[in-house]
């Protein structure tokens, strides 16, 4: 499952992938809007769900074969 909006943060380290995600989600304030985040920093596995908890979103993680983490992040509450 992916969103049409893809944020590619591969090659960057936390907090940058989370910042990129936050910027993309800031443009999508309505409930149900989503973004796909690609990242390869293992810290994102923990930090993306933590960010979602702080910002009223949920995330679903898929680990792709090439050491890439793909998150589908969806807004649950209006920002």
């Amino acid at each position, binding site marked *: 499952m992916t969103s049409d909006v893809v944020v590619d943060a591969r090659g960057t*380290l*936390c907090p940058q992938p989370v*910042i990129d995600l936050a910027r993309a989600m*800031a443009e999508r304030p309505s409930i149900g809007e989503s973004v796909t985040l690609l990242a390869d*920093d293992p*810290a994102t*596995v*923990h930090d993306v769900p*933590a960010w979602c908890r*702080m910002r009223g979103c949920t995330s679903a993680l898929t680990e792709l074969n090439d050491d890439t983490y793909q998150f589908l992040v969806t807004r649950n509450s209006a920002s």
Partner: protein
Amino acid sequence: MLAGLDDGWADPSRLHREGRRAQLVINDAKARIAALLDIRTDELTIVRSGTHAVRTAIEGLAQARRRSSAPMIVSTVEHSCVIDASEALTLNGASAVRHLGVDRDGLVDPSELATLLSDLMARADAGPPPPFVAVQSVNQETGTAQPLDRVAEITRSADVPLLVDASQSLGREDVPVHWDVMAGSAHKWGGPAGIGLLAIRTGVRWRAPTPVRGLDRTSDGFPDVPALLAAAASLEQAERERAVVRPRLLALTDQIRATAASIPDVEVVGHPTQRAAHLVTFSCLYVAGDAIVGALDRIDLSVASGSACASVQHGPSHVLAAMGVLTHGNVRIGLPADVTDADVARLIDALPPVVAAIRADAGTVGL
């Protein structure tokens, strides 16, 4: 320490006068440490580091239950030396490691442990109980103190030894009483490096992993006598001063916690009350931990970061990950016993503008 050099240089296993004198010095230092831990001297072994104490504890516990196929049970927030030593054993055919999770505050759940142990023992092929359960006294990153009394009740009724890594709490918090095997490290309470403590209660299922002929079962060779004396003296001092130092540090860390929590999108990590007095950890959203460490260092405030960015080669902090909190932007502050109120006031003043400036630079304000 000088007495250690004057009287403690000889081989203590020899019967000549110098050897006997060295043995007396060692025995005296061990007896003083044992008294502070409220154990018998023969339950205490001096080893060369806290890490070595942990390894010897784990190898000996696994050796004593080597016929058990039940897993070693290790909390997810243990110091990496506890996790690594347990996992290393599985490579040599020992049973697997089962992780005991923690909640958002970093606390293990005793009832989860009880369920896990009763499930293991209810299995049709259940052999001997697990070799040990490892739950630390105080966490090295968050300061969260585990409910060892309730954990010990469960391990005792399941006949499983409880290993407590007390490295973070000895000399700072009440000496743990609920344990079967305990490990500690002198430099953590302000003593010398090179002295680890391994305490094994009489009757506990522990077997020396590599027995040394002619020496007692727990011997780790001849200790560094001057360092051992310094370890005993520094623990005595820490215990003497604890009643005054601890409330003071607790009030100071309460202030730091309140300041950090007042900054937007900063999460103070670890249990607010069940905690060691000297440690504070918080995570700042959108901020690199080493950026804060660097900014504070420039105004002569030394703090640590357990964040992923500060230690890329090690990956994110396994403790913060286990708690489900942000692993980036993490700042860990450990207050020494002699920290001044003025230094803490300076930190409290500096923190909010430092975090705000880093966020402004990165353009993350309002995200």
